[in-house]
C-alpha cells in the first residue's frame, strides 16, 4: 500500500490511523442508520413461503431473484426503490397475485442462500395470516351470504370457516380465520369482493394477538 512506503513518524502514523478509523466508523454508523430506517418491514410486504424470520432473512438474502424467476405464477417480485420492502428483496402483494401454494414450493427450492427454507412443506408456510379487518364492509357482516373468502381458500374447511354469530341483532355467518392452518397465501384477499379487501393478509406479529397477560406497566 502507498501509505506503508511513505516515511512516517509515530505521530503521523497514529494520526492517520485514527483518522481512517474515524472515517470508517462515521461511514459505517451512517450506513447502519440508513439501513435501520429502510429495513422496517412494511405490513404490506409479504415474503415468499419458507422465509426465515425478517431479521435473519435480511442477512441471508442476496437479492438474486432466483425465487422470483422460479415462481410459475409471477407472484413474486424484487422490491424496487420506492416500494415497501428493503430494496432488492423478494415480496408479493396478494391483492394483485396471491401465492398459489405449489406443492413442490419451487421458489423456496430455488433459493441458494437458505433465506428461504427449501425443505418446507407448503402447508407449514408462514407468509402471514389472514385477518378480517373490515367488519363494516364485509358482506357477511351485513347479513348476506357472500362467503367468497371461505370458498376460495385453498386450505378448505380448515383455514377459514363460517361460524354462526349475531351482529346488530341479526343472525350472520362470520368468516373466521384459524391461524394454525392459515399460511397467508392471500387467495381470500385477492378475491374479496369489496373495493378494498375486507380480509387481508398481515405479517403474523401484526395480525395476531398473543396469549398471556399484557406486560405493560408490570415489573419483570
Amino acid at each position, binding site marked *: 500500500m502507498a501509505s506503508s512506503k511513505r516515511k512516517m513518524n509515530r505521530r503521523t502514523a497514529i494520526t492517520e490511523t485514527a483518522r481512517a478509523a474515524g472515517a470508517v466508523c462515521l461511514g459505517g454508523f451512517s450506513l447502519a442508520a440508513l439501513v435501520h430506517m429502510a429495513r422496517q418491514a412494511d405490513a404490506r410486504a409479504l415474503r415468499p413461503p419458507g422465509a426465515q424470520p425478517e431479521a435473519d432473512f435480511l442477512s441471508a438474502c442476496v437479492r438474486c431473484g432466483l425465487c422470483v*424467476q422460479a415462481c410459475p405464477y409471477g407472484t413474486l417480485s424484487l422490491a424496487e426503490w420506492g416500494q415497501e420492502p428493503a430494496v432488492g428483496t423478494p415480496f408479493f402483494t396478494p391483492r394483485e397475485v396471491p401465492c398459489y401454494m405449489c406443492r413442490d414450493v419451487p421458489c423456496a427450492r430455488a433459493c441458494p442462500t437458505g433465506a428461504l427454507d427449501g425443505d418446507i412443506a407448503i402447508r407449514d408456510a408462514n407468509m402471514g395470516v389472514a385477518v378480517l379487518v373490515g367488519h363494516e364492509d364485509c358482506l357477511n357482516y351485513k347479513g348476506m351470504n357472500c362467503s367468497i373468502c371461505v370458498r376460495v381458500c385453498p386450505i378448505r374447511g380448515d383455514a377459514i370457516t363460517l361460524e354462526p354469530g349475531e351482529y346488530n341483532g341479526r343472525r350472520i355467518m362470520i368468516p373466521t380465520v384459524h391461524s394454525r392452518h392459515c399460511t397467508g397465501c392471500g387467495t381470500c384477499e385477492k378475491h374479496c369482493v369489496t373495493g378494498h379487501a375486507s380480509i387481508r393478509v398481515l405479517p403474523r406479529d401484526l395480525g395476531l394477538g398473543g396469549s398471556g397477560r399484557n406486560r405493560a406497566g408490570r415489573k419483570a
Partner: protein
Amino acid sequence: MNARWLIADSRRLGVQAHGVLRAHKWWLLRRICQISVLGLFMLGPMAGIWIARGNFAASQIGGVVPLADPYILIQGLFGGASPAIPVVTGAIIIALAYLIVGGRVYCGWVCPVNIVTDAAFWLREKTGLTRDRKLDRRSRLGILAATLLASALTGTVAWEFVNPVSLMQRAFISGIGFGWAIILAVFLLDLFVSRRAWCGHLCPVGAFYGLIGRGSLVRVAAVNRDACTDCGACFTICPEPHVIVPGLKGTGSPLILSGDCQNCGGCIDACPVDVFRMTTRLTVPQAREGG
C-alpha cells in the same frame, strides 16, 4: 456531421497510428462482454430462454453451476447469516475466476455502472470539463470496511440497500424504480465533481475485487517500454493511472501488478507505439523485490 468527433481525445494518437478499429479493440471487446453478460440474464425473463437464472448477486448457469458475488456473501456473514452450500460454492467459483483473469476485470468487463462512468468520462473530455475535486483513492477501502461494519451492526447485507452496481444490473433484469436517481447521481459525480470519482475512488465493490486482483494471473505488461514516446495517451485513458507508473517507468518488471488495474486494455488501445500487451504473470519475468 463528422463521426470522428465521437472518438475520445485520449484515443486520437492510437487511431492515427493503427486506425479506428484497432484503437477500439479492447474497448469493443469489453462492451460486447458487458452487454452479453447482462443479455444472458435478460434472455430468461424477457424471452423465456433460461441459460442463466438469477442476477449478478447469485445465479444458476445452465441449471447446474451456482455463481454468487463473494462481496455480498461476506457482508451477509458479517450480518450473522449462516449461508447455504450453493451460495458459498458460487462465491468460491467467482473468487477463483477473478483470481485468474484479474479481480477488477469485474469492473471493466462485467459491471454495467462502468458504461455509465466511462460515458461520463468521455463527456468530460468532450466538453472540456476539468473541475477535479481530489479524492483519496483509498477512500474505497474505508467504505468497504464501513459496509462490513454496518452489516455487523444491523444484521443485514448493508451495502445492498444503496449499491448502484446491484441496482443497475437489476434495472435490466427485473426493475429499479427510483433507483435510477442513484445511477444518475454517480454519472453527475463523475462528470462534474471529480475525474473517475466513483469507480476509481469510492466504490467498495471495486475495492473488494481489487483486493482479489492483487494476486491475479492475467496482467497487462509494458513489454515494449523502450519504445515509449512519453505522449501520455495511456495515462489519459487509464481509469487508474497510478497503476501504469511502476511497469512503464520503473526499472523492475514491466508487469502492471497493482490490484487496481482493471485489465481493460485501454492503454493497449491508446498507445501509438504498441508498448503494452495483455499477458500473464508467468510469461513476463517479474523483477526481484526492490529490483
